[in-house]
């Protein structure tokens, strides 16, 4: 930023002694001084210089100075705060996250912007499309954060992201069983859990009723037509009952069918023979009873396969420690993709059409035209977008602060947020905070210089 200040000032000082060729006052390279005397120039420059000094130069200098002191601001620690940045585990996560951001976000945004820009050239209603993609720019990052906090909500009834995932999932497979129900535990129980399925502990014989007590059935999944459980009597076939072994209001015996306990209809029951093969399959009736018709006498293990207990798919934990950074980058892309698209579209409009047409006439495919003509001609614009995005990602704060729940904020942390957190968010260590601010400045500086250089070159 200071460079821009220096730029216009330096040539002016040298310009008053010469003055051979007349030219517009705003081209500093011309030798003739048409403008006012240095004193007047200085007077005009003073307000800007003063403001920049107060708002930019002084804070930076003070931050550098402050970063060499401890939390209280009294003890000189030298470069101690900078050492902390690169040794503390939490800070290293922060730096790692920033790296992910800087690598992923600008590439994704520039690519998406390019794709949108190229495609909107070809479609009708391009303006409407552009307007919609550009719309998020009108929303402040803070508000965008609030929106995405809701989008990523784990509960599919609230969060759009998981609502979409569960809807897609439910189209292909639907859970109709008893999610989260499980076998009654304990030594007395005749059944046990085995890799998601429920099996009888002992092989059972035909002719004796098999009891399969199940607990933890949520009231919401209990079918309305469930009847009080009954144990099938008589017959030499393999038969039994699957029931909800819980008497509402307490009382009732565990592992025994009590009067008010209900059967679990619609359960798939398998009889597994001694060879490990499924010999027969049955489905429980409304009172929870099942019967394997025509099964050869012998001993079997009765199994309720896992499909009975599969929990409904509830989407992803977007706001958990694993997905949090990609999730926030998604929100960031949503905000900035439109901006990239508009800039690139403007660049695209300025490309000489004859070059494209010449290529097409020479027999280039559309991909080749895009690859060899459009992209190279667009590269200056792409670079501007890319560098601007790098600077923006390095400074990202609001989205991370709002979207990440505090339990995962350390995993989602970035340098700018950490700077605020250690300085004001409870840490109260403004020494370390200043060090982080300077670290961030140093990270941003090369890209700033790059951008300024480009501007100069373009103006020259």
């Amino acid at each position: 930023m200071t460079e821009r200040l220096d730029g216009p000032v330096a040539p002016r000082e040298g310009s008053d002694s010469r003055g051979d060729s007349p030219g517009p006052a705003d081209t500093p390279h011309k030798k003739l001084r048409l403008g006012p005397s240095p004193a007047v120039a200085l007077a005009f420059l003073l307000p800007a210089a003063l403001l920049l000094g107060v708002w930019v130069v002084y804070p930076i200098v003070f931050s550098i100075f402050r970063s060499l002191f401890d939390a209280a601001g009294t003890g000189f620690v030298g470069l101690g705060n900078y050492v902390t940045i690169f040794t503390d585990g939490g800070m290293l996560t922060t730096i790692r996250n920033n790296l992910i951001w800087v690598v992923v976000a600008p590439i994704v945004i520039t690519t998406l912007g390019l794709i949108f820009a190229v495609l909107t050239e070809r479609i009708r209603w391009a303006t409407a499309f552009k307007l919609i993609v550009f719309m998020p720019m009108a929303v402040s990052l803070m508000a965008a954060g609030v929106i995405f906090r809701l989008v990523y909500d784990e509960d599919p009834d609230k969060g759009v992201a998981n609502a979409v995932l569960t809807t897609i999932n439910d189209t292909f497979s639907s859970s109709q069983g008893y999610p989260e129900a499980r076998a009654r535990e304990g030594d007395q129980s005749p059944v046990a859990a085995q890799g998601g399925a429920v099996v009888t502990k002992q092989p059972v014989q035909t002719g004796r009723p098999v009891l399969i007590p199940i607990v933890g059935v949520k009231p919401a999944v209990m079918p309305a037509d469930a009847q009080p459980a009954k144990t099938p009597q008589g017959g030499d076939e393999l038969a039994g009952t699957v029931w909800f072994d819980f008497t509402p209001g307490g009382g009732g015996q565990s592992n025994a069918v009590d009067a008010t306990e209900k059967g679990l209809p619609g359960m798939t029951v398998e009889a597994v023979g001694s060879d490990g093969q499924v010999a027969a399959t049955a489905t429980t009736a409304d009172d929870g009873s099942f019967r394997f018709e025509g099964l050869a006498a012998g001993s079997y293990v009765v199994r309720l396969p896992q499909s009975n207990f599969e929990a409904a798919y509830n989407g992803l934990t977007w706001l958990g420690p694993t997905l949090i950074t990609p999730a926030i980058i998604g929100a960031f892309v949503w905000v900035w993709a439109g901006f990239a698209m508009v800039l690139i579209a403007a660049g695209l409009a300025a490309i000489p059409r004859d070059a494209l047409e010449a290529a097409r006439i020479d027999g280039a495919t559309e991909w080749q035209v895009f690859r060899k003509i459009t992209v190279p001609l667009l590269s200056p614009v792409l670079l501007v977008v890319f560098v601007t995005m790098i600077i923006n990602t390095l400074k990202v704060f609001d989205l991370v602060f709002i979207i990440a729940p505090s339990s995962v904020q350390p995993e989602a942390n970035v340098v700018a947020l950490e700077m605020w957190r250690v300085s004001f968010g409870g840490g109260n260590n403004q020494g370390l905070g200043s060090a982080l601010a300077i670290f961030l400045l140093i990270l941003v500086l090369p890209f700033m210089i790059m951008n300024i250089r480009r501007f100069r070159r373009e103006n020259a």
Partner: protein
Amino acid sequence: MRSARAAAVLAGLAVAVAACGNAPTTTQPTTSSSAATGGGAKTLEGVKLEVAAKWTGDEQKNFEQVLKAFSEKTGAVVTYASTGEDTGAYLGPRIQGGSPPDVAILPQPGLVQQYAEQNALKPLTDAVTKQIDDNYTPYWKELGSADGKVYGVLVKAAHKSLVWYQAKAFEDAGVQPPATWDELVKASQTIADSGTPPFSFCGASGWTLTDLFENVYLSSAGPEKYDQLAKHEIPWTDPSVATALEKIAQIAGKKEFVADGNSGALQTDFPTCVTKVFGQKKAAMVIEADFVATPVVQAGAKVGEDAKYFPFPKAGDTAPVVLGGDVAVAMKDSPGAMALLEFLASKEGGEVWAKLPGYLSPNKNVSPDNYPDDLTKQLGKTIVEAGDAVRYDMSDLAPSAFGGTDGKGEWKVLQDFLRDPSDVKGAQEALEAEAKKAWK
């Protein structure tokens, strides 16, 4: 300001992002311009005061009524500013900038020491100290002191040794409120068998987890060890900490015990976890303090009928009583500030406040009869009667980097522990590492 607007948006969408309410939501001055009754001389006519506290919503409204009573008595104009969840983050820059509020109400006694060291607090005048001596047991006076000087008045207490439960879920499962930890675990199993997850944890709000730990620790390790751990005189790798964490793992480690699973619980903040129990009826119990009553009512449940509580079960020899509380301090040397503190510490001020819901007074001369409902009356009695056996919330006594910062220190480690309750040893080592950093 952008953040101010965001705070409003946040409140509107009820996405309670902790520590984000730093924007000063200054309210209209509770002026005394109303036809003031009361014969007392209005000694502070025309004096303007600013009070900053973290309360919002109903708590704020109730406190403003207390301020109004003060205004009517003295004639001073008092403005309330909300500090948001993170009081330190709000006050820090204001202290640095040289324009602190006249009176600040700090959520942690640890902050009293911290600000006293920075010379940001004004020692209380004799008149205020006299009120404290008259109305408080020495334990409370101690909490508001630093270096032998009294700086703060404990104006509001919170009873943190409660377990709230949904009466219907207990009835359906046929269980009674448990008195010991083993009974609690057993009752939880029965409730889980009945098809309702027994616990709703507020994992996103780290302080609820420290409260849970403190109750279990005070109960299983006893008050002496509690004091030692609070001052970091024994390390967090002590076996007594392992015992407490293992006990927590008994209720947090079974997936059918935790509503929405452990990762879901970590994204549930307070008071959403309360809504899960009493609004959505997705769980049976929530372990938190007396102030759960406010979100219970908001969830549409009736305290005492749908929503009941039992004392935190004994996990060892001691029946735990852990308290939290807010300490009022003066940050400017103005007569108005001292007068307000005197009013808040007095029997008179305490009784005005006690008549409003959601308030417990540590003031021994405020009779429990003032409380609007029976439950609060009982709680008020237990606090006053418990006397020396009471312990203050350990995390609030710790340096705030350890015990009071989102995503850092104890909060963060206990959140990680809730994510994976099997790793007791890892949690202990992480706690000790964080404690070493904070206490150096």
